[in-house]
């Protein structure tokens, strides 16, 4: 591309700038490649974007806060403007958090923006994961990106927890106390890890500065790296799209990046930021001045972590009484280890799910058209069970608030949750699977026979029928565009042996695909249409003969 042929018009600022940049960086090629990239448009595709934008807001507001926050745990006597703490002993970290709140213009606003966007970041990431799960967007070729997204979710929880602990107030201090207690429960090395983490005995004077390093350097850097990988993979894979007429595994249907998508996505950043700002202007979050500085003796009713750590706290609460036991002289704190193990197993299952499903289906094709959740009944049901399991653990972290708000007994609420944790996921699995299958049957029915019209006709031989109106081809295609899977049998391998692996795969495939509804085929639909036409003729004949 020669510069002479691209001589910009003098008065065209846009072209002038483009020319300037291209002559120095050669970006025209990049723009040519990506400028008209197609992005599909659907509200559920924006959830990841919400997470991304709240992360940007976190970086912006967090940078502001670092200019005023001092993470030292050295003790000072507070001499700021907040009267009920004047003269109180506290750490510099807490005092500087109070100063940000009460003495920096816009400081409290930025604290609230930072905290609300943190809650939103993890919530949006979580909902994004659920969208990806329930639509099967994790299937080949996107398994690795699912894992990267999972890592981002875990890092988000880590960033949140390290940030929650920084103000060194009573609430966050008791949160750290719980972490310390859990760490001490780890066999062999618990007390060592605790001593290393806290720089000696709890609470010490090291933990806040250490968490601060993690919170503002290591974890955000890792998030940025994984975010970059996540987005590069997104570009490489191109976005998925929902099934519908014209949408195939071999194409992508949507709007070009420039200008439509740039305007929409760019505008959406301002909207996410604006809504966070709106909530932060009107709603208090983490009123640290109410809690006072950390002191190991007091505690507040309703001491809970932020929502994304809630499920872990809930797991701790739901452990049954008396699970600690001794091996010789050594104490095994199963009341801590069991909830820890359950949480880790749950996370591990989430991380590896795409590989499990792929192993069972053996489907090695690339999938770019998303599943409607009903068309993968067992996956959807597993997802529903997982959501239920997580939700009960999460609710478990607020047993005390549930008890007081709904006037129930704390003890009964807790016992009910322990039972629900086992029972409700199973129930929701079964119910969800049934609902999916019924919806699929209904789709099939509608695809073959058309929509019910409510018009009842009596045939000459006395039979009453309801007239069905066929769907148009676009509506029809949406209902039939999926593949069902069939269970496999455990087959002998080359050596003539049936391996355990094969047996497991066979029984899992039965579990997944025993109940299934096939999509309506062209011949089924034609046959039904033919039949409907016959009836229509019969009706016409009857009308004529009556005349």
């Amino acid at each position, binding site marked *: 591309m020669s510069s002479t042929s691209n001589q910009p018009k003098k008065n065209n600022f846009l072209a002038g700038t483009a020319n300037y940049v291209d002559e120095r960086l050669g970006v025209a090629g990049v723009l040519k490649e990506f400028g008209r990239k197609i992005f599909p448009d659907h509200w559920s595709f924006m959830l990841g974007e919400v997470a991304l934008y709240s992360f940007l807001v976190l970086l912006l507001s967090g940078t502001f806060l670092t200019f005023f926050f001092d993470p030292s745990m050295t003790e000072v006597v507070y001499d700021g403007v907040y009267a009920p703490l004047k003269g109180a002993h506290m750490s510099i970290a807490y005092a500087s958090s109070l100063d940000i709140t009460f003495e920096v213009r816009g400081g409290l606003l930025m604290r609230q923006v930072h905290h609300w966007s943190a809650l939103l970041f993890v919530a949006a990431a979580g909902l994004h994961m659920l969208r990806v799960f329930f639509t099967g967007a994790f299937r080949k070729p996107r398994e690795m990106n699912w894992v990267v997204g999972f890592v981002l979710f875990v890092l988000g929880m880590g960033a949140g927890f390290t940030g929650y602990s920084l103000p060194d107030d009573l609430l966050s201090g008791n949160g750290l106390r719980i972490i310390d207690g859990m760490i001490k429960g780890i066999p062999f090395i618990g007390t060592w890890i605790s001593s*290393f983490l806290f720089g000696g005995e709890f609470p010490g004077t090291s933990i806040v500065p250490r968490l601060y390093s993690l919170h503002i350097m290591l974890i955000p850097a890792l998030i940025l790296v994984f975010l970059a990988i996540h987005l590069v993979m997104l570009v490489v894979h191109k976005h998925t799209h929902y099934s519908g007429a014209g949408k195939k595994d071999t*194409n*992508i249907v949507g709007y070009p990046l420039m200008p439509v998508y740039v305007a929409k996505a760019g505008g959406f950043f301002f909207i996410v930021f604006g809504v966070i700002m709106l909530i932060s202007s009107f709603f208090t979050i983490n009123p640290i001045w109410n809690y006072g500085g950390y002191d190991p003796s007091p505690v507040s009713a309703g001491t809970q972590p932020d929502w994304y750590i809630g499920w872990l706290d809930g797991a701790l609460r739901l452990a049954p009484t008396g699970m*600690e036991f001794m091996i010789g002289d050594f104490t095994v704190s199963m009341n801590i280890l069991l909830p820890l193990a359950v949480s880790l197993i749950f996370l591990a299952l989430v991380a590896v799910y795409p590989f499990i499903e792929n192993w069972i289906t053996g489907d090695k094709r690339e999938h770019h058209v998303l599943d409607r959740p009903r068309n993968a009944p067992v996956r959807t049901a597993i997802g529903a069970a997982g959501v239920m399991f997580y939700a009960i653990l999460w609710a478990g972290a607020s047993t005390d608030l549930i008890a007081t708000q709904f006037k129930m007994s704390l003890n009964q609420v807790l016992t009910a949750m322990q039972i629900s944790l086992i029972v409700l996921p199973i129930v929701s699995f079964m119910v969800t699977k049934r609902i999916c299958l019924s919806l699929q049957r209904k789709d099939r029915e509608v695809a073959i026979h058309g929509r019910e019209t409510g018009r009842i006709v009596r045939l000459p031989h006395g039979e009453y029928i309801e007239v069905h109106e066929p769907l148009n081809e676009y509506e029809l295609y949406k209902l039939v565009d999926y593949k069902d899977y069939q269970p496999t049998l455990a087959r002998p391998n080359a050596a003539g042996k049936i391996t355990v692996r094969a047996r497991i795969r066979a029984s899992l495939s039965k579990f997944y695909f025993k109940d299934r509804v096939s999509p309506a085929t062209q011949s089924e639909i034609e046959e039904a249409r033919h039949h409907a036409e016959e009836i229509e003729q019969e009706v016409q004949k009857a009308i004529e003969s009556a005349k």
Partner: protein
Amino acid sequence: MSEQSKEVERSQNAGLAVIKPDAVRDPGIEPHRVRMTDKSPKHAKSAARQVALLFTLSMFGSAFALWTYFAFPINEDLNTVRQNTLFLGVGITLGLLGIGIGAIHWAKTLMPDHEVAEDRHLLASPEDKRAAAIEIINLANQESGFTRRKLIRRTLYGALALFPLPGLIIFGDLGPNPGNSLRHTIWKKGTRLARDPYGTPIKASDVTIGSVYHVVPEGLVPGTEHYLEEKAKAAVLLVRVEPDKLIETEERKSWSYQGIVAYSKICTHVGCPVALYEQHTHHLLCPCHQSTFDLVDGCKVVFGPAARPLPQLPIYVDEEGYLRAQSDFNEPVGPSFWDRSVKS
């Protein structure tokens, strides 16, 4: 199952998916629906005006935020903090939402909304490229002798395995070895029980039935060295109940005084302060994970995830009537740890 679907399964490509030859044909992308703004210039013009209005609103918002920064300074009065937060926030919100909603409105009404299809290509590289890549790897292997020279390869593995270890070991000074610190508190024979946080000593006669005192060892007041670390182990709850209600083992009969008992306040689950005392049920409840302890029955666990009773602090009364500790706790306080029962 039909022959054909078995065929599919063996092909290793679609796995267990059933591929039907007479699947419904794809009719192609739905025809484009024309918008009002495409049909009528009047609508297009009004949409353009709306977008411009939104952008103008954003300018006003940002200007308002700038103004509030100076117009609402903050001082000793908390109302000023509220006003500063609110008005600054509202201004910025307008500034942001004006741009956001304006841009999207623009995109939705005035930019083309024809859905376009673009082809995807298989992610796997074509065979010739793959072959070339393998060729390069093989060549690199040959030239370096990576697989051929076992000694080099194995020593490299060894070196790579060892080199991160110094990086780990230098974190060794993050903290001291836990040592015996978890087994002891600053309670010792004769330490007076004092009120938290002011450190005034407590007389037995002060502790009426139904009272609860939050207690620290005398001398442990804010500002003393290792105040929080010591308090995190030494905090005690002091309660008096009717003496005949106490269920005490022989050994512990001498640990209480006329119905006054002192128990560690640090939960044996994960260490929250177990501070909720119910006067009539004599239950102590931990607000973090709801472990419940029966104070009159040696603080045994009656509910919740904790497994061990709270440790008891043996107390006595001196000639002046002050409560004093007979000794330190006779077991480690707080959350369980692996070797807590190992005598050292």
